[in-house]
């Protein structure tokens, strides 16, 4: 990797770090972050495939209230760098997804540090507001977002500082049963993200939709777009029929936020 590529990698990492907290352009999602790292390092294919794998795992990761999701930004950026440095090609993707998970945890810790710093910064903003100094409020807002960028950019730079040969030596020590097992784990770990989402959304009236989706997906001819269209159409139909025909006791379903399966699980 030459100097320009290294600068670009750090830049991508910086963007991912910013977006990890802003959640707007989605540069921190594995699909985008890994692809960009692949692009700037000249391993576009590897980046795309790794991004796709990690994206499947991270589909359900979202920060909601107190529940903190693993950090997709650090996981994507760092595992993509390691994969590129390892020189293992597509063979190393299973290994890279395995390495990404502990990194996702480490990223959480870094976010907590920056958010604590931010608590101090809003007090500075208070003081500036009293003086109507909007320019300084703008500036502090920018400093804050840059700190979030550095949260990923600095670890990325440190990783780049490790020579590729050292990375390859350490990964070479990893036996095949371990890397194969990690690929298998990576295929299963997708379930955690889905479980998080289901726990948030499930209610009595949506479980039938889940069952139909599960059954229809076994028909491999249906693409994801087709499945999405079926799901959308059914939801629209359900709501339309409900408001039309619900002369008797419409809306009474809403009172119970009951989630039958959830209750069973709770009682267990």
């Amino acid at each position, binding site marked *: 990797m030459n100097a320009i590529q290294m600068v670009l990698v750090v830049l991508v990492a910086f963007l991912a770090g910013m977006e990890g*907290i802003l959640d*707007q*352009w*989605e540069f921190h*999602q594995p*699909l*985008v972050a890994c692809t960009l790292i692949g692009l700037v390092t000249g391993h*576009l294919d590897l980046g*795309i*495939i790794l991004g*796709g794998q990690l994206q*499947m795992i991270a*589909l359900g990761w979202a920060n*909601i209230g107190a529940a903190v999701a693993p950090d997709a930004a650090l996981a994507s950026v760092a595992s993509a760098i390691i994969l590129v440095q390892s020189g293992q090609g597509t063979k190393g993707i299973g290994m890279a997804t395995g390495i990404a998970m*502990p990194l996702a*945890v480490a990223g959480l810790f870094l976010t907590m540090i920056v958010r*604590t710093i*931010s608590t101090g*910064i*809003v007090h500075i903003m*208070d003081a500036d*507001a*009293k003086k*109507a100094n*909007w320019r300084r*409020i703008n500036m502090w*807002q920018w400093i*804050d*977002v840059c700190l979030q960028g550095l949260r990923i950019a600095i670890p990325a730079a440190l990783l780049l500082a490790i020579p590729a040969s050292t990375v390859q030596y350490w990964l070479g020590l990893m036996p095949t*049963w*371990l890397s194969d*097992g*990690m690929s298998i784990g990576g*295929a*299963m*770990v*997708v*379930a*955690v993200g*889905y*479980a998080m989402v*289901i726990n948030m959304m*499930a209610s009595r*009236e949506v479980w039938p*939709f*889940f069952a*139909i*989706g*599960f*059954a229809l*997906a*076994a028909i491999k001819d249906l693409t994801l777009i087709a*499945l*999405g269209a079926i*799901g959308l159409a*059914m939801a629209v139909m359900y*709501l339309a029929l409900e408001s039309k025909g619900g002369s008797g006791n419409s809306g009474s379903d809403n009172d119970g936020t009951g989630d039958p399966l*959830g209750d069973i699980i*709770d009682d*267990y």
Partner: protein
Amino acid sequence: MADQKIKLTKADRFKVMWHSQFLQASWNYERMQNGGFAYSLIPALRKLYPKKEDMAEALQRHLVFFNVHPYLVSPIIGVTLALEEDKANGAKVEDEAIQGVKVGMMGPLAGVGDPVFWYTVRPIVGALGASMAIQGNILGPILFFVIWNVIRLAFMWYTQEFGYRAGSAITNDMSGGLLQKVTRGASMMGMFVLGSLIERWVNITFTPVVSRTPVQKGGYIDWNSLPAGAKGIQQALIGQSNGLSLTKFKTTTLQNNLDSLIPGLAGLLLTFLCMWLLKKKVSPIVIIIGIFIVGVVLHVLHVL
């Protein structure tokens, strides 16, 4: 003050929308998105309050606790802009009224954003992109990036404009049925897609061989009696397309049995197990690491 009306132009409102993308930049444990909200409004406030003391008051007014979904902030900003504009033009809008509107909209809107954006749109668009990307298709990430940002920017701009035009009247609609309907519809579609994603993408393949029965003569390709060279390959391929077995023995793995029963059953059960663990307040990170360990151990034991 009231002799000339100050109007926020479309360009001003667009600047505010652009700023609001940085809502979460100064997210903090004390007042969450307060810095971001004040930052978002600055382009408008600068125009509305040329006097320093007015500006100071306005900035302090918006540095109080605030937290909502980062896209659903747009209708709230729209309403706030309308109120601040009235206030700047001399109407009697109390600070409490502005706070009341913000807090009143925060609750119901935050509840809409998560199921719609994080649980329905992102998993669907993400899975669409990822399924292409896994095959090395560059269109995967590009589609994801473009579709997501078009939806997001359009949503933010139009709901902010809607809030600005509707003004505080919007708070009455908030509690109405529409928002609830959108949320419920999104949950239904989301659950449907989740069901299909679990079937397709939670891959667990059990490798133990259940049975190994010999195939009767003529039911398999007899590799020893094939003619040499390309002729032989042709004959073998014809045989295979006619449904002949490739080996003398028909092996059935545990996975074949499961697939004929319910495809994707193992993935479904694993998902339910994760749901149960999450409800038992086990950290998702612990579950993820645990699954990796189980995967390695079962692979070593030749179960997976």
